[in-house]
């Protein structure tokens, strides 16, 4: 815990994995960041029906494990559903993973990994 608190100082960006509308909106809010240099790394991923699940997993891995400057990862719930095992398996406090609704998929608290943990904890 102490270690994660120490590293939390460097985390200043948000990242997003979601459908085009969600990503566009969040980018409009100004969360988009493309790192400089030859290996320019974007902090967002647009997922549509043609996106491979492996790509989503790879980006998820990158945002949650490899990059140390992401404080919050926003992910559309219906996208999270596709990589649910990964989301469920991720229990570190950083980055915070937040499942957000998308335009076509309203938010369902039943599926939320974190809320599931809350429920489990209260034995409901």
């Amino acid at each position, binding site marked *: 815990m102490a270690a994660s608190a120490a590293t939390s100082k460097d985390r200043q960006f*948000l990242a997003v994995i979601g459908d085009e509308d969600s990503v566009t909106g969040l980018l409009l809010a100004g969360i988009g960041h493309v790192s400089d240099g030859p290996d320019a790394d974007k902090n967002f991923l647009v997922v549509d029906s043609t996106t491979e699940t492996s790509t989503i997993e790879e980006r998820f891995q990158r945002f949650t494990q490899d990059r140390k400057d992401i404080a919050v990862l926003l992910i559309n719930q219906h996208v999270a559903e596709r990589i649910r095992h990964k989301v469920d398996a991720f229990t570190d406090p950083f980055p915070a993973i937040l499942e957000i609704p998308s335009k076509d998929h309203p938010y369902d608290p039943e599926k939320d990994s974190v809320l599931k943990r809350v429920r489990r904890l209260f034995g409901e």
Partner: protein
Amino acid sequence: MSGAVGREAVFPTRQSLGLMKNKLKGAEIGHSLLKRKSEALTKYVSIPITISRYILTFHLLANRRFREITRRIDEAKQKMGRVMQIAAFSLAEVSYAVGGDIGYQIQESAKQARFRVRAKQENVSGVLLPSFESYLQEGVNDFGLTGLGKGGQQIQRCRETYARAVETLVELASLQTAFLILDEVIKVVNRRVNAIEHVIIPRTENTIKYINSELDELDREEFYRLKKVSGKKKRDVAAADAEILAARQRAAEEQAANPEAAAKTPSTKEEESTDVLGENEDNDVIF
């Protein structure tokens, strides 16, 4: 059987009585010493109990905070649903005004994050909880000209709406992180509490019980022994008293019936009749 064990093979003499008395005293002292030791043991055990009480209190406090957090997470998640819906709707307004898709252009225009977060720490019952605070990076404006010819105002408004939505999301992320960390701490504390409650305390109690039972057993044995001893002593004393009394009575009777014979009666004959007459000594004792 115990009566047989408990009884010591001593002669009912004054000397042995003294010995028994000393023994009893010694046993009493020993008992009290043992008792004190047991108390000391209990005290020793009670130190972890105090700790556990402290942890329990903390646990309760943390739990209260935790419940507070989960309640707020629940609220915030619902709020998020609404806020995101409003935001998505403002995006619909944009596509209405622009009359086309701006998604690709937005994705390609993004360079520098304007909306960022910084992590703070908050101390809750000795646990450091991080919380995110959102801020806008000055001088970054990637989409300033988007929608220049058409729909620019809607885009501007949409940006504001989404920025507010993201603020809510960041708030929620803080809560969620706090929850996850507290969850971790509480799990550890719970393990300790459970360990104390279900392992250490029962074990200690069992030990105390065992010690007590042993001590009680000793006590009882001691008590029984003492009782036996005192009973025997009493009986010995009573028997001795009766003997003396009987002897005196007989002597007095002999003296009264045959005063001259009393002088010449041999002592051996006197002893033989002691037991026979000792039985109704009580009647004689009355006067």
